[in-house]
């Protein structure tokens, strides 16, 4: 991945529950609200990758490999602030 690009990883149920759908919508709105590249990737709990994160509670959201929310729908406003903070910290170090 590009050093300046970011990734949301959503670990969800199969089939996705209502909350999983809501989280996906919030992530899309968040990505649309920032001025840099952020990818969204969805995987199901049955995958080896999900198990490697020790996913126990869904929906689980990881940002650049770190878990930021489990079992809840994160707030778009908070996600935008978090992304901008991480992005500017990373830009400072480049």
């Amino acid at each position, binding site marked *: 991945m590009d050093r300046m690009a970011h990734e949301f990883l959503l670990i969800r*149920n199969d089939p996705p*529950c*209502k*909350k999983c759908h809501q989280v996906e919508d919030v992530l899309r709105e968040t990505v649309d609200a920032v001025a840099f590249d952020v990818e969204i990737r969805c995987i199901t*709990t049955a995958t080896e990758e999900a198990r490697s*994160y*020790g*996913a*126990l*509670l*869904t929906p*689980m959201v*990881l940002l650049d*490999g*770190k*878990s*930021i*929310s*489990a*079992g*809840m*729908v*994160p*707030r778009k406003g*908070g*996600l935008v*602030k*978090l992304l901008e903070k991480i992005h500017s910290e990373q830009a400072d170090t480049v």
Partner: protein
Amino acid sequence: MSEQRRIYLDHNATAPVHPDVATALGPFLTTRYGNPSAPYMAGQEAKRDVAAARCAVKNLIGCTSGSLVFTSGGTEANNLAIKGAFFAANGRPKGHVVISAIEHPCVRETAAWLERQGVSVTTVPVTRQGQVRPDSVAKALRPETFLVAVMHANNETGVVQPIEEIASLTRDAGILFHVDGVQAAGKLAVDVEALGCDSYSVSGHKFGALKGVGGLYLRDPSSLEWIQQGGHQEGGYRAGTENVPGIVAMGKAAEAALRDLEANTAHCRAVRDVFDRLAANMPMTRLNGHPEARLPNTTNLCCLYADAMSICMALSIEGVFLGTGSACASHTQEPSYVLRAMGLSDQAAYCSVRISVGPSVSLDDAEFAAERITQAVETIRLVTAPEDIGTCGDDCPCFIETDTP
């Protein structure tokens, strides 16, 4: 990929197997397989091994004159103590039992079973710092009370209870007093005779033995009616072939715990204090429990507006393992009843994490973990809607089932 650093901060759930135990167990998994009931040499060796382990566990809890019966763990020991007292009281339907509001489920649910048999159960409250007040117990006693059960130290908060004061009440009234010592044995200097209780349960894996072995101290074994029949083992008090490897492991772990108690206490307290300081250093964070009357290894922190499961998951990915107080029961998350009993709101209980350390956790580990906790809480607070904490949708599976019997 390099091996991730792992920091285990959930010693109240289970402790790592002590190296002395691992060393001692080798022959018991290969050549030393005798049944202690057998008359030939291999059986007699096993019998001596069980006796030596019993002696070590008795030493750990200061038992010089009573009995110690090996069980499959703390849960069985607590069940035995409570149901055994009930049957010894001739199963009288008008009997009465007193328990505290913060007992482990194996005591609470056994008391609920007694209620279904017609016994009245009084649950006494705790203070905001998580302690049972002896005068609350005194007020709850009735002429038909046959048993009081209060734990020595709480598994979630580590708060140590005033056992000696409660024992003096029950002794004066001629009532059996059972103490669940699962969290205290191996972490505190325990003297069951000085405490004055009639029975005291312990669990091996909480102090470095294997899972699946525990014990019940009895001042007077004839005070209980034994509920498991079918063998003469354990003096007839607990039928079934002895779990020799588990019992040997418990004996070795007990020896090590007693030998190293002073050093481990000082070390754990220093490490724990790193986490205690988070209550002062992080905003909207406070310590749940008593500041002093507490196990030297346990810190329970309420990190308001950051739900504990999200903290636990975030830390788990970083290789830091800590406990939460909530449990999930079929699509609903329940807040910790221990913290609720201490007056915390549901939301504050959902935002509480338990950190319980052991001798293998270094100060450097603690500093690293404390930094990760601070970062995780800050992030989770940023993205979490406070009103969502503890909620769960009707069609939301939430917890992933990985095993069913």
